[in-house]
């Protein structure tokens, strides 16, 4: 596809509006080669940011108190016979209605400002509500009827001259017709409505005091390239903690403390195009994203994910990414399947599905923060490939000896949270957590809806009843001004900050922010700023229908946070009770992984999942780059599918270079190490850098020799690839995944794996 820098597609791309993968790829290719196109995109985004900031700070006028009351009274009498009567009557009278209203308007305005009694005003204000809609004289207007084509826009009457400060006399008014009256009437109504409005919506009272310009300028930082940091911290004197000889693994110790130079600025994401699957493609046995007929219209939003491609080791020796211990995608996929629907592709994040489950990884020894173990065997969906499973476990913290905590619950109580699976479930979930807390813990509760407020100032958990009573009293209602709520919650957390303790905002929401700072870029920017205060963030996602997965995930990502999706009380118990340590206590932050593959052993590799966590190779050593956080006792798992070096399977390569020799291999490549894994992180408080480094050998295990956990992980990955209809799924099908899952079920103390097996079966039945 050819794209000209002047193509509307470039604007659409800059604004994040390209839906088609191929189109986006084509544009990205253009950007790679064309400085002009890159500048164009930058300029579009800058103009968009400017416009967004200006337009969002335009003052807002609310309805008058009387208009609002009028609506409220109608909302309680939706089936009042008078309305039907009124409608049909006006339907008959038809075009006369407009004339009647006009007369009414003139009559009222003739009374003059000082004589307009409040009840007259009601008549005036409500008059237009009786106007018939042209063309829909009978019956309840449906969306389709309402959405009739609109011919012309913007009449010229918006430009009717109204001089500021000039109040026309009564005779002038009559001479000019009803038009200029409106201004006067407006002032009058404002005078009555303003004080009331000010009381009800202190934040929206922008008429007299325009809201402050929103913070930040990014239209959507998600659209932006990672900004290159102004300075790169020197990576000197890294204390290299090396763990060797982990039981059951094939990890060898490597003298640590040295970070080998990063080879060229190889961007993992910009490697050669995806290699075709090495086996004959299997027809998709499922069409993910395909909805069953009759499904409700919904506005859930998911970002598109493009599977990481196979990369040739000679060109992309390094693979760098930020860890992700979120689990929300799995619960969300489960929710879809339990409603007999296949999840949309974008909702399936394979790494989050894998990390939902805990695996039997050895605890770190001694003072180490992490243990790392690696298992390599045949990839069940492509036996010629190796599947590398890297399991990492964070140090556990005895909950009884945990540091004192300062928690701020920030709860969305907007109208959209009313359904049973949102606020009522949320209240029960938070109750579970509060019941686990003790005298060293403090809880504050902030809520946000149209306005945000502190329901409970920071209170010691000695007064648990008080906290629980505040929770019980919460009710849903109002709009969702997430932005100001987040500010309030962070401010509360900062003013009760416990040095060395657990300082955390727990945000519970359906992510549907609609008032205030709703521009995602501004919101994310604000959260990124707030995260620098040392307060961590947990995001609990609730609800269906208008659930904004993409917003919520990015908030957690920017806010040094973790993210779980709560669809049942059982899930709340898993996240807030059983895994409380992992959820609340951060043991390491900005955790990044970099793997260097040995070209002598590996021809090509592919990282499974983590698509939105990829980092540039040079970012690994850049400690200003934000990355994921790990909680106490957290385990997480990384899977690579590797094409072995000696494999005869054809990876279509590129022609030999004319001006360069292939990169020389070092003597270390003869070591028969398959790869070297480096883990870089910071302690939760402070900036000191830590580095761990491991060399890994492939011990040529067959699939039949693989461990139970390995089989289960392979099952989850297979299921994810099938749901996503990944181009790399090879021979994976629902039934092969089911087989693997049954082999890999193991002990399954809490029944999570049994539930997974149930979901696989469910997916099979939906397919048919």
């Amino acid at each position, binding site marked *: 596809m050819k794209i000209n820098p002047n193509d509307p597609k470039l604007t659409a791309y800059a604004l994040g509006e390209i839906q088609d993968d191929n189109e986006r790829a084509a544009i990205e290719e253009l950007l790679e080669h064309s400085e002009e196109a890159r500048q164009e995109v930058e300029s579009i985004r800058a103009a968009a940011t400017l416009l967004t900031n200006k337009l969002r700070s335009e003052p807002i006028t609310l309805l008058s108190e009387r208009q609002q009351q009028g609506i409220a009274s109608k909302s309680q009498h939706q089936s009042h016979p008078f309305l039907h009567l009124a409608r049909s009557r006006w339907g008959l009278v038809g075009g006369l209605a407009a004339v009647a209203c006009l007369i009414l308007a003139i009559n009222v305005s003739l009374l003059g400002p000082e004589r307009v009694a409040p009840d007259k005003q009601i008549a005036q204000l409500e008059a237009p509500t009786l106007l018939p809609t042209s063309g829909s004289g009978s019956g309840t207007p449906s969306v389709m009827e309402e959405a009739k084509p609109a011919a012309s826009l913007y009449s010229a009457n918006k430009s009717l001259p109204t001089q500021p400060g000039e109040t026309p006399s009564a005779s002038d008014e009559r001479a000019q017709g009803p038009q200029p009256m409106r201004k006067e009437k407006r002032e009058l109504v404002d005078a009555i409505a303003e004080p009331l409005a000010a009381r009800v919506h202190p934040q929206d009272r922008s008429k007299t005091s325009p809201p402050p310009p929103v913070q930040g300028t990014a239209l959507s930082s998600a659209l932006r390239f990672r900004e290159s940091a102004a300075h790169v911290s020197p990576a000197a004197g890294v204390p290299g903690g090396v763990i060797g000889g982990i039981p059951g693994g094939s990890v060898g110790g490597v003298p640590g403390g040295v970070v080998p130079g990063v080879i060229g600025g190889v961007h993992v994401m910009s490697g050669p195009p995806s290699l075709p699957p090495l086996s004959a493609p299997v027809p998709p046995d499922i069409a993910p994203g395909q909805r069953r007929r009759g499904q409700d219209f919904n506005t859930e939003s998911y970002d598109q994910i493009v599977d990481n491609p196979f990369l040739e080791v000679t060109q992309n020796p390094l693979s760098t990414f930020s860890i992700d211990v979120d689990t929300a995608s799995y619960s969300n996929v489960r929710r879809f399947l339990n409603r007999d629907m296949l999840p949309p592709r974008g909702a399936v994040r394979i790494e989050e599905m894998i990390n939902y489950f805990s695996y039997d990884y050895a605890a770190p020894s001694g003072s180490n923060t992490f243990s790392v173990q690696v298992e390599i065997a045949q990839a069940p969906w492509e036996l010629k490939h190796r599947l590398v499973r890297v399991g990492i476990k964070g140090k556990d913290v005895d909950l009884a000896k945990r540091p004192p905590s300062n928690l701020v619950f920030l709860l969305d109580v907007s109208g959209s949270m009313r359904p049973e699976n949102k606020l009522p479930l949320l209240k029960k979930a938070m109750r579970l957590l509060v019941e686990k807390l003790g005298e060293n813990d403090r809880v504050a509760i902030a809520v946000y809806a149209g306005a945000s407020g502190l329901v409970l100032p920071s209170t010691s958990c000695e007064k648990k009843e008080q906290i629980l009573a505040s929770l019980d009293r919460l009710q849903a209602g109002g709009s969702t001004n997430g932005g100001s709520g987040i500010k309030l919650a962070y401010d509360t957390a900062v003013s009760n900050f416990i040095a060395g303790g657990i300082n955390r905002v727990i945000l519970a929401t359906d992510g549907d922010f609609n008032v205030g700072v709703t521009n995602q870029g501004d919101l994310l920017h604000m959260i990124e700023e707030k995260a620098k205060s040392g307060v961590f963030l947990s995001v609990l996602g609730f609800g269906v229908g*208008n659930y904004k997965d993409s917003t919520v995930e990015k908030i957690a990502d920017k806010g040094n946070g973790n993210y779980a999706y709560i669809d049942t009380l059982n899930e709340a118990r898993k996240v807030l009770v059983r895994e409380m340590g992992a959820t609340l206590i951060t043991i390491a932050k900005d955790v990044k992984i970099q793997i260097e593959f040995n070209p002598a052993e590996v021809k090509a590799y592919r990282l499974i999942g983590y698509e939105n966590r990829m980092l540039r190779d040079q970012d690994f050593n850049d400690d200003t780059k934000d990355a994921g956080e790990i909680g106490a006792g957290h385990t997480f798992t990384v899977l690579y599918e590797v094409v072995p070096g000696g494999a005869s399977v054809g990876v279509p390569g590129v022609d030999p270079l004319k001006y360069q020799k292939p990169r020389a291999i070092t003597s270390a490549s003869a070591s028969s190490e398959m790869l070297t894994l480096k883990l870089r992180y910071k302690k939760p408080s402070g900036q000191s850098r830590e580095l761990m480094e491991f060399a890994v050998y492939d011990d040529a295990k067959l699939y039949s020799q693989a461990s139970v956990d390995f089989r289960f992980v392979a099952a989850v990955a297979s299921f994810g690839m099938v749901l996503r209809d990944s181009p790399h799924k090879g021979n994976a099908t629902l039934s092969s995944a089911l087989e693997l899952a049954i082999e890999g079920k193991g002990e399954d103390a809490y029944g999570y794996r049994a539930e997974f097996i149930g979901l696989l079966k469910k997916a099979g039945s939906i397919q048919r």
Partner: protein
Amino acid sequence: MKRDDKADWIQSALARYQGTLVRYAAHITGDSEKARDVVQDTFIRLCKQKPSQIEGHLAQWLFTVCRNRALDVQRKESRMEPLTETQSNSRASSEPGALRLLEQEEATSRVMQLLEKLPPNQQEVIRLKFQNDMSYREISQVTELSVSNVGFLIHTGLKTIRQKLPAQSDLGSKAIRRIK
């Protein structure tokens, strides 16, 4: 749904959307008082709807109904005081004070002046996109334009603004020079 639930639902929709809807409607009617009437009417229509049919696309429904009501009102008004073609053109394109009510401190802002000089249809989609955070698809549903039409209008509008915007600190001056 129980009566109370419905009332709450209306209240929450009202709290959430009234301000943005009045702001939006005022740009069609040219008058915030008429816009308030239009918005009140929109919500009264909402009272007659079944929440289950609207939940999930409430914003689109409200904007669509509000837009059509505002256009109705505006058409009726223009019948009362017809303008010739030339008058209306010149006013729509060269009257920065047209939106007196809403401009306030933006009056000095160059970018807003440029925006107000764009053709009305470009202004509207730009407002829906940047002020009300709608996607191209949502805008297409509200305005009944095709998605690619929406994309073209936004592209063209932004391009005009970018070309006329003086080099500012937040716009790369290099990029600006190149476009010119």
